[in-house]
């Protein structure tokens, strides 16, 4: 579904991804963790070419993302992206937020798109907030609208960039719950997060990144019980103790 082959990425002089090789299978849930600045966001932002890569190959859903001639609009419609800061459109209601792309990109009739939008918003527990503006919703509710916005495109892949990091603690669970359900339904997901409980319980594999490299990748039982690299161990001891 997603394949990185020796992918390199620079921001000017800064070498941010240093030869990433990684394969994600359909219906797999991959959690990515690592210290701040290690390149986690950049890694998933390359998948829909929010950031272009400079070297290596990146193949997503059969499309060669590393080739500049590859037309991204169609592929982007197949990939939902959830940001740390939600990034909802503040001048639109929840329902308008989730129906915009289906209507404009997928060219679905408004009535049908709204029906689907209602269904998906109800599924993430916001059936009574259809006509609220983002500013009228709590952080957890906004993030659930953002997830619904991705889901309304009926994507093949969902990418999450620290979806709960901007939330107050009491709202984290309502968002994780939505993501858990999504994983159970067989969505292909890459989740950048430090929620190790979620990783343990839901993910198929956990990856650890540091300084632009994939240090370690393993199923959660193994990753947490017997981390192979010293750096992984150090990182885990830091985040699991606080």
């Amino acid at each position, binding site marked *: 579904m997603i394949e990185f082959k020796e992918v390199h990425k620079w921001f000017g002089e800064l070498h941010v991804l240093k030869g990433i090789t990684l394969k994600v299978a359909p219906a797999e849930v991959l959690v990515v963790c690592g210290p701040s600045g290690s390149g986690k966001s950049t890694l998933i932002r390359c998948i829909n070419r*929010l950031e272009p890569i400079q070297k290596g190959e990146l193949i997503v859903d059969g499309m060669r993302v590393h080739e500049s001639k590859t037309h991204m609009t169609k592929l982007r*419609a197949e990939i939902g992206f959830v940001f740390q*800061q939600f*990034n*909802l459109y*503040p001048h639109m209601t929840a329902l308008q937020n989730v129906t*915009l792309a289906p209507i*404009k990109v997928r060219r679905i009739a408004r009535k049908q798109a709204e029906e689907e939008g209602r269904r998906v918003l109800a599924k993430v527990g916001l059936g009574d907030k259809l006509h609220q503006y983002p500013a009228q919703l709590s952080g957890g509710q906004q993030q659930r609208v953002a997830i619904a*916005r991705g889901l309304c495109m009926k994507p093949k892949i969902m990418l999450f960039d620290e979806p709960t990091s901007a939330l107050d603690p009491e709202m984290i669970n309502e968002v994780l719950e939505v993501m858990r359900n999504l994983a159970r339904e067989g969505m292909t997901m890459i989740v950048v997060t430090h929620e190790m409980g979620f990783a343990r319980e839901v993910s198929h594999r956990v990856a650890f990144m540091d300084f632009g490299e994939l240090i370690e990748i393993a199923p959660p039982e193994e990753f947490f019980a017997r981390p192979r690299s010293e750096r992984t161990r150090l990182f885990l001891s830091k985040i699991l103790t606080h």
Partner: protein
Amino acid sequence: MLETFNFRVILEYMPLFLRCFWATLWLSGAGLLGALVVGTLACGMRIGRFTLLSWAAGAYIESIRSTPLLVQLFFFYFGLPSLGIRMSEAATGILALTLNSGAYMAEIIRAGIQSIPHGQVEAAVSSGLNYLQRMRHIILPQAIGVTLPPLLGQAIVLVKDSALLSLISLPELTRAGQIMTSERFMPAEGFLTSALFYLLIYYSLKALTHWSQKRLIYMQT
């Protein structure tokens, strides 16, 4: 002193003032419309991806903002004919107001567009919306909300600047005051009447600003 203030003469000159009031309105209105078009275009060129266009728009904006309107007006009025380009006085005046105000509006619109958090653009890109769709559905609806008050402020400046058109003998409000002064030597009555008409335009535009701000308030939250 006040007993020398001559209201009768003002009444006598009222038809002239009304004609000139109308002239100020339509000259400014045409300049405003032109400035909005030029400003939007210049802003689009400035922030677009074509280096040459962006540079040209930048040069235009900078050269207008760094020189006095009066110099620009005289250049169009005296300079262009000497280069073989002839226009009526009204066209010259509207051109000067349009190009002058357009440069300021380009910057106002640019600030409005750039005030939209980049994350929203990334969200729109991620869901497959193309450039025009993002402009149409995400950027412009919000940018207009942010931009309307400063744009109306610029419109007020433009109306006041239109007084300079009296210097190329266009019969507008300031010119009316001059005419009355030179014919009857009553500068107090003449220019005060001009000022009152400007005040009327100012308050109408200000009321419009308040009204638009109230309607758009939810976007600021």
